[in-house]
């Protein structure tokens, strides 16, 4: 096979080779135009973070440069540290729970022998993944309502006083983490199940002959067969430590819970779109983006080292 390919490719002369590759370059043009306009130009627009930006003068207009003043102003805001903490706290809860829950569900599903039941579970748990946070947020506001929501009604049966889940600074971050895991675990479960499917069935037979029980087979064969993918997803999750989930929190938070629920992205939104503090907002966004891309870079590197994961 190699031979035929080298024959077809190397037949023409040098200029012919480029001509042969020309279509490949041409195909990239539309995509390149799009990323240049919608990704690279806004990237250049990050200069706003170092300006006293006045919209009337326009993006890349003759703005006043003020160095790192916007950053100093942001870091000196009293609640900025709290916002950073909230972000990392909520995001890490989501990452950790979002790892553990799907692993457990995948292990349990692997024990199910009725294919139909297995399919039904897999299909159902995947549904919330496809539903927008607007809809899920609407549902949560309804069922978590302290006066007439289904959850508090259920708790009431057990004599628990109504809890205002979304309006309470203590419960808010946990509600965010749990509902986020609920939305997303169907997806990761499928990924784990696929890695279980790749385990050699002979291993189970051999273990059974050796007298290994159900739990030890689950532990030593299934779980250890999933090791690579678990490490991979854990490492890749690292890059998301500053992504606490804008859509969800913006949909569900309120000034009452800013103390524990306000995150970097919501702060960026409020500074920029509500207070018209364009420079400050961009500075916060840039600050987050720099840390994030550094972490994502590390995570890809680790994924490559630990799990031999090549991205492209």
């Amino acid at each position: 096979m190699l031979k035929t390919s080298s024959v077809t490719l190397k037949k023409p002369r040098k200029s012919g080779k480029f001509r042969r590759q020309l279509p490949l370059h041409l195909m990239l043009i539309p995509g390149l135009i799009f990323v240049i306009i919608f990704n690279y130009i806004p990237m250049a627009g990050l200069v706003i973070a170092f300006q006293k930006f006045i919209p009337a003068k326009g993006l890349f207009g003759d703005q006043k440069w003020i160095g790192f003043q916007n950053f100093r102003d942001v870091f000196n805001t009293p609640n900025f540290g709290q916002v950073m903490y909230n972000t990392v706290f909520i995001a890490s809860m989501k990452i950790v729970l979002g790892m553990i829950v799907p692993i457990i569900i995948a292990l349990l599903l692997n024990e199910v022998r009725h294919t139909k039941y297995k399919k039904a579970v897999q299909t159902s748990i995947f549904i919330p993944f496809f539903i927008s946070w607007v809809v899920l947020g609407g549902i949560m506001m309804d069922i978590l309502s302290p006066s007439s929501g289904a959850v508090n009604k259920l708790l009431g049966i057990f004599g628990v006083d109504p809890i205002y889940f979304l309006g309470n600074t203590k419960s808010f971050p946990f509600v965010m983490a749990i509902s986020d895991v609920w939305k997303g675990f169907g997806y990761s479960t499928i990924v784990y199940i696929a890695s279980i499917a790749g385990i050699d069935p002979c291993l189970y037979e051999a273990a059974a002959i050796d007298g290994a029980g159900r739990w030890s087979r689950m532990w030593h064969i299934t779980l250890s067969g999933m090791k690579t993918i678990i490490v991979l997803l854990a490492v890749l999750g690292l890059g998301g430590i500053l992504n606490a989930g804008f859509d969800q929190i913006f949909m569900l938070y309120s000034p009452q819970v800013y103390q524990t629920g306000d995150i970097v992205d919501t702060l960026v939104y409020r500074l920029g779109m509500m207070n018209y503090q364009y420079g400050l907002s961009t500075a916060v966004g840039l600050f987050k983006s720099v840390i994030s891309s550094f972490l994502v870079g590390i995570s890809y590197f680790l994924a490559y080292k630990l799990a031999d994961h090549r991205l492209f």
Partner: protein
Amino acid sequence: MINNKSLKNNIIDIFIYAILFIVMISCILPFIHIFAISLSSSAPASAGLVGLLPKGFSTKSWEEVLGYKDFWRAFSISVIRVVAGTSLSLFLVILTAYPLSKESREFKGRTVYVWFFFFTTLVGGGLIPTYFLLSKMNLINSIWVLILPGAMNVFNMVLMLNFFRQIPKELEEAAFLDGAGYWRSLWSIIVPTSRPAIATITLFTAVGHWNSWFDGLIYMDTPAKYPLQTYAQTILVTIDTSKGITADDLANLLLFNDRTLRAAIIIVAAIPVLIVYPFFQKHLSKGIVIGSVKG
């Protein structure tokens, strides 16, 4: 001894089935519950008496929602963005992924191109610069602002690229020997063999378009131009005061105070996805696995 063991096994099985059952219904019941509320009368609904079946069956809220002109306008904006946005995005993703799926040996410059695209997933311009760029391009308030900025989705492109790479090289080489060029090979060999990946990415892109609401909220100045999710968002969340409360907002606020109406809006915004999902589900796990496990 053996009996004892199989008894123990059965108990564990029952336990596992039960846990999975609870997990499964936790993903379905909330939708059924809200659906039941939307079909109940206002009084039992606001008193929280509705469980999984409607109380005091009434289609009033549905009739109302489906009777609003605003609703249908928002709905059609969403449909347009899904159809146009998904087609454009898929076109760009496939067209970009194909050359980049070639080895550097075959396509010189491949690595440089890949990094040029990939870099955009690491650093972005963020909210404000993007906003001012789009406003400079006169895209604010235009339907294109919902379609163009995200059309070249690099993550999906990488997924597609990885799928293309797994297609046996022999297929293409045979076509090349028959005199086909890259264009020909892409449309008549690569695309037809990539159906699971294309189905998966189509679904993700379409659902993503249907579900987005934030772009509508910030790039549209008037609620008349909101797509359905943004329309639903402003109704469900206490009105966003960043743009000042308009008379429209106030009317909405009063109108949608009713729990059954809110429930109907929620279900209506979710229904298209719930309908489409089963048809794609077959391809889905295959497509996902290819993209994420085997990179």
